[in-house]
């Protein structure tokens, strides 16, 4: 939607939404949130930006093509599960450690994998649809 008002607003909202999304992701282990919800919010951020500024502008704000993110996310999830297996314990057994005073564990890393996968997948879907909708607009 090529409107000035929306374009201006979406610049603020984009960053706010992204921050909120990571906030929701990292906090999810203790309060409502988590990888999926966080990812949806991030998708919302990009969808909003694409809506206001067009698809290619939104694509420029993405470090990797969405589908690569899917692979990356799944890979992270898999690796977080394999850590337990390498410890001679069952698949997906949690391993915890401290980083900078924050308690970090493979389940949290797994949640990051969830985040990236869902984000990549939905974004790829939305981008693909936007792409085909270009003809209409």
């Amino acid at each position, binding site marked *: 939607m090529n409107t*000035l*008002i929306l*374009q201006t*607003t979406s610049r603020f909202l984009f*960053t706010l939404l992204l*921050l909120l999304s990571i906030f929701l992701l990292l906090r999810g282990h203790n309060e409502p949130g988590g990888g999926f919800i966080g990812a949806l919010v991030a998708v919302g951020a990009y969808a909003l930006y694409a809506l206001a500024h067009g698809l290619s502008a939104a694509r420029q704000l993405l470090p990797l093509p969405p589908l690569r993110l899917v692979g990356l996310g799944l890979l992270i999830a898999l690796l977080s599960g394999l850590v337990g297996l390498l410890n001679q314990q069952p698949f997906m057994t949690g391993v915890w450690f401290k980083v900078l*005073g*924050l308690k970090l564990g493979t389940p949290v890393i797994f949640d990051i994998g969830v985040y990236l996968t869902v984000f990549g997948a939905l974004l790829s879907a939305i981008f693909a649809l936007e792409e085909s909708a270009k003809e209409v607009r």
Partner: protein
Amino acid sequence: MRAFTYNLLLTIFWLAVTEVFTLGNFLVGFALSFLILLLARPLFDEASRRYFTLFWKLPRFALLMLWEIVLSSLRVAQAVFSPRMKIQPGIIAYPLEVKSDLEITLLANLITLTPGTLSLDVSHDRKVLYVHGMFVDDPQAVARSIHESLEKAVLEVTR
């Protein structure tokens, strides 16, 4: 400069919501904000110093907006609950004095939130804002009131 401010803002927000006021968490928040701003790099190329001043003028402006919203809502309530709705809707073209994207957006949003008016769209050349009014007995009067109470306030914050 503006990027830095914004970055700090986001970091403060981060500290507030996570409730962990340690140096480590500050760094995490700063780094996260930094990353996000890095992603949003293309956004920060023009007039970034304005942002810093905006940070100070914001509270005053917010209070003004809040007050206008209360007034406007009461006016709607009055209209809604009166047995015979005394409204006189109309769409007027309001010539803009404000120029920048931010100013126009602020003004448009403010118009929407304030009594009886609702921004519909800005003309392509950014010279005119089309406003829907609930009580447009006199289009000139509506335009004047917008100019007096809103456009001036916006200019004060942004310039």
